[in-house]
């Protein structure tokens, strides 16, 4: 195994050398850095040309210039010496500084979208596999391919038009006309019906139920002016909590495990108490306080599960801990909602919360909650755009893999020996279906840092993609090389990680080495 990894690493270094040389040459050939000056009629044109020639060392041929860059980059390999020199941009900023900033921005932009895409995509894939060839399957397939094939810049423009400009207009005067309620109710009914199982009768019931619930909810929210003054309040938190508890137990232990049900419900109670106890403290919240709160909820959950005892303590502990964390999440979300009116009326936000560009409202320096909401309103649209575009691959891969597993002999065996469907799906099929996805996820995390060039451009987000595009426009090789180094190294590393992880997950493919 070790020799295998070493071999792969050596190849990776060689590939990186070759590719960096090619990229450097391509960049140098991609344009004329003096273009704007050559056609200039400035009285000091020659002097300006000379200054830039010297700055970019243009009199040295590009293949030689590459080695100059390489000599600086090689210093990055010296550990702890802080001699790293990746050159500087045409405007004199060190590439290392620009890279770290751009990477940070890109990570904030893409992480949520990727995590959500994985969770939602995989769930959709599993569900559609379990309901193969149903209306739900066709519906999800159609939608995911639709979004997959929409150009992302167009999707982004649509999102801005309706999700930001339209929604902000709505928020200025949140009054839902009856027609909208009707349309939403019908849509909701259809979605419910799609999720309901095969018989037409059940579908009909689901349709009516879905439509009525959506209509009633909208009507109520409109009535209490919830959109301008949102919040959950203890009763909704309680109801949501019970729902969460039952859902969690259903997936992790099965509702027949009474101890797990009681442990989770106890955690809902704990959460409700926490809602009253923690909220006053949260006024001065920091991100660490929130994380600590989450950890405490997990620990309490584990304790409650442990005290509940019984035949399989582990299951109760897991269920209770998960419920605890989710309750904590609900409390935090409630707190954000309660802060919403203060955010919207902030003079810098000027009553138009959902943003179309950038990562934050300039000059807005307020509490954790206000700034958190600000990040949310700025990341909402780009995250949605990225999410919609990448749902397809995850859902299709996981559906295919799940279908393959469900037709395996061992699944039939598991059913034959009388295991419940939940156990068969969650334990025997689901886990194994995830193995092929490990490769996909590893690649995507590698590509994450590379940035979403078009999305960043459309949403004016200063991440890796913009760094790359702007450097390319100026025919400025150093930032491009920095970008390439990061993206290239990550691609190679995660390629390797994917292979290694695969061999750990699936004993059948362990490499002989």
């Amino acid at each position, binding site marked *: 195994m070790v020799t295998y990894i070493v071999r792969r690493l050596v190849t990776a270094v060689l590939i990186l050398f070759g590719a960096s040389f090619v990229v450097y040459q391509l960049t140098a050939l991609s344009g004329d850095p003096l*273009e704007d000056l050559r*056609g200039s009629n400035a009285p000091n044109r020659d002097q300006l040309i000379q200054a830039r020639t010297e700055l970019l060392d243009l009199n040295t041929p590009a293949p030689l210039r590459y080695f100059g860059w390489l000599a600086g980059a090689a210093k990055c390999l010296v550990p702890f010496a802080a001699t790293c020199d990746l050159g500087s941009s045409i405007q004199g*900023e060190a590439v290392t500084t620009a890279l770290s900033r751009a990477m940070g921005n890109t990570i904030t932009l893409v992480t949520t979208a990727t995590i959500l895409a994985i969770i939602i995509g995989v769930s959709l894939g599993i569900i559609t596999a379990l309901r193969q060839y149903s209306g739900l399957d066709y519906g999800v397939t159609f939608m995911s391919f639709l979004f997959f094939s929409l150009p992302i810049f167009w999707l982004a423009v649509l999102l*801005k038009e309706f999700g930001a400009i339209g929604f902000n207009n709505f928020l200025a005067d949140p009054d839902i006309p009856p027609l909208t309620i009707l349309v939403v109710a019908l849509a909701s009914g259809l979605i419910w019906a799609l999720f309901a199982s095969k018989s037409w009768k059940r579908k009909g019931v689901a349709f009516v139920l879905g439509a009525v619930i959506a209509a009633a909810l909208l009507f109520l929210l409109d009535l209490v002016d919830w959109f301008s003054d949102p919040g959950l*309040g203890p009763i909704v938190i309680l109801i949501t909590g019970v729902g969460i508890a039952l859902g969690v137990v259903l997936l992790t232990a099965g509702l027949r495990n009474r101890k797990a049900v009681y442990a989770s419900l106890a955690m809902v109670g704990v959460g409700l108490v926490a809602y009253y106890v923690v909220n006053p403290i949260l006024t001065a919240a920091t991100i660490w306080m929130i994380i600590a709160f989450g950890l405490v909820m997990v620990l309490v959950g584990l304790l409650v599960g442990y005290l509940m005892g019984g035949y399989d303590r582990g299951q109760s502990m897991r269920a209770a801990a998960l419920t605890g964390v989710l309750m904590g999440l609900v409390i935090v979300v409630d707190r954000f909602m*309660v802060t919403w009116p203060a955010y919207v009326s902030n003079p810098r936000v000027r009553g*138009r919360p959902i943003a179309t560009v950038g990562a934050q409202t*300039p000059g807005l320096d307020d509490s954790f909650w206000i700034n958190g909401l600000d990040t949310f309103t700025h990341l909402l649209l780009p995250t949605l755009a990225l999410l919609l575009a990448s749902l397809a691959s995850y859902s299709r891969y996981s559906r295919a893999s799940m279908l393959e597993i469900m037709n395996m002999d061992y699944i039939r065996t598991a059913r034959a020996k009388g295991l419940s469907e939940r156990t068969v799906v969650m334990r025997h099929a689901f886990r194994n279906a995830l193995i092929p996805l490990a490769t996909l996820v590893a690649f995507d995390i590698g590509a994450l840092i590379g940035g979403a060039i078009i999305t960043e451009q459309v949403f*004016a987000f200063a991440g890796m993609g913009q760094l790359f595009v702007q450097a390319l426009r100026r025919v400025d090789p150093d930032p491009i090389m920095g970008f390439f180094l990061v993206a290239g190294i990550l691609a190679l590393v995660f390629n390797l990680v994917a292979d290694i992880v695969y061999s750990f997950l699936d004993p059948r493919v362990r490499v002989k080495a």
Partner: protein
Amino acid sequence: MRFTRTSRAVGVAAVAALALSACAADTGTDSSDGGDDGEATGGNVRVVEVNAFSSFNSNTSEGNVDINGKIAYATHAGFVYVNNDLEVVQNEDFGTMEVLSEDPLSVKYTVNEDVKWSDGEPVDGGDLLLTWAIGSGYFDDAKTDDAGEPVSGTTYFDYAGDTSGLALTELPEIGEDGRSITLNYSEPYADYMVAFGDMTGEAGISTPAHVVAEKGGLADEDALIELIQTAPAGDPENPEERPEVQDLADFWNAGFDTKSLPEDESLYLSNGPFIASSITPDQSMTLVRNEDYTWGPEPKVDEITVRYIGEAPAQIQALQNGEVDIIAPQASADTVEQLEALDGITVEQGNQLSYDHLDLNFDGVFKDADVREAFMKTVPRQQLVDTIIKKINPDAEPLDSQLFLTDQAAYEEAASSNGSDAYAEVDIEGAKELLDGATPEVRLMYNRDNPNRLNSYTLIAESAAKAGFKVVDGGLGASDWGAALGNGTYDATIFGWINSGVGVAGVPQIFKSGSGSNFNGFSSPEADELMNELIVTTDEAEQDALQVQIDKLIWDSKYGIPLFQVPGVDAYSDNISGVEYMPNQMGIWWNFWDWSVVQ
């Protein structure tokens, strides 16, 4: 019935409200009514820029980017600025510029007494002297070979502006009051008014000498003055090592470059209406009012937020969503169409200072003036404007002068007398007559990656073919066309020039025999003579008269033909007033002090 329904609704609402919020936890949010961060009275204006800020010194060749120049404009003051009629306006509140004698030209600059940097230091003679030393290239002794490779010596301050004007002056003395400096020119210099920069790009008196002195390794500002006044001028024939000047220059060249707000306030001192208060790299920047500032037009708003958005559609949607107040996107037909469809937005259209022109080489097929004239007669200028420009700027017309832009006062006079009216209409018959049956082959070079140039080429080639010209498409890619200028591989070319709008130093750069940007080999002894006179003429009326004459000589020689000025567009929300279109590179920033928030 109606009553019961209402009361039932109220009941439902009450229950719902109870369910949603009753006995909610103490979140501490009810007491604060939001918006308590002390928004001052003048309000805040949010402007969009395409490029991201990168340096507090816009005078170096690295820092010389449009956005840096605009920030420098808002945070510094100088003796003059340019208004949107492209006139130089003196700012007497900052200081006075007094012509002591016309010939030899001697100008005394005095900064008013209470003018100071934002750290309290006065703006004084030391600052003027340092600005002079940088802008004149006084210490430079670099020598370059034909390929542009430096052979010996050093260029100390990497100054992006033109040093030729101040280089005509001898080492100035600081006046008795310590706030003035007198420049004695060896010969009259036409652009003396903007010798210390015209606030477009080179932002007035923008370099605090006391900061440069301390950061550059000298004891204080007096040591700097001492150094400048005692060190001999640079001589390319006898280059010498100047470690002290080198240290100063190294700091000046790179020390102000930053994408984030420096910890050290002395790196972003202001002596203008605004001062930088916060920067989010590559995203936004905030300027707040410089409370001390009284020496010039006083701004109405308290804060300007600059946001960087590259794409025009994203700018438009941000404006529509109320996230920003003023945008000046890249002008295109789509942009204008989208902007005009919006409510609550004012759109301003106009010309920019860059203009496209067709130049004919004075050798090859075009050696014969008749052939040049014939080609000029075929150029469908009105059609070019109609198809390319009118969609963006409905008021656009073909440009009828080689030296003046339509926005300049002397344009009408030049255009009516230079003979350009002969080319107002396409005259195929006239061209055929001049060609007398010949069918010359013309290779036309242009940047084919620029859609406007490609369109121009297509229309010009089509029209010229009717008169018998065989036009060969010599279009080159964006990375190649610039290098091909003046290398003799083509007969005619279409490209753009930028008229600074102010000053006359740019004229000989293009039209003088053998000059750096004279690519088509135009040479007229008579015009050269007039241009020599032009650059030593300090009177504006005389400058205009000379330029009108030069313009006519150029047209008479069948130089080629100017096509159109590139259109520009800006748009602002109805929440803002005072924004005015400006053709030069400062754009809407030129009168930022007039911006105000409509209450």
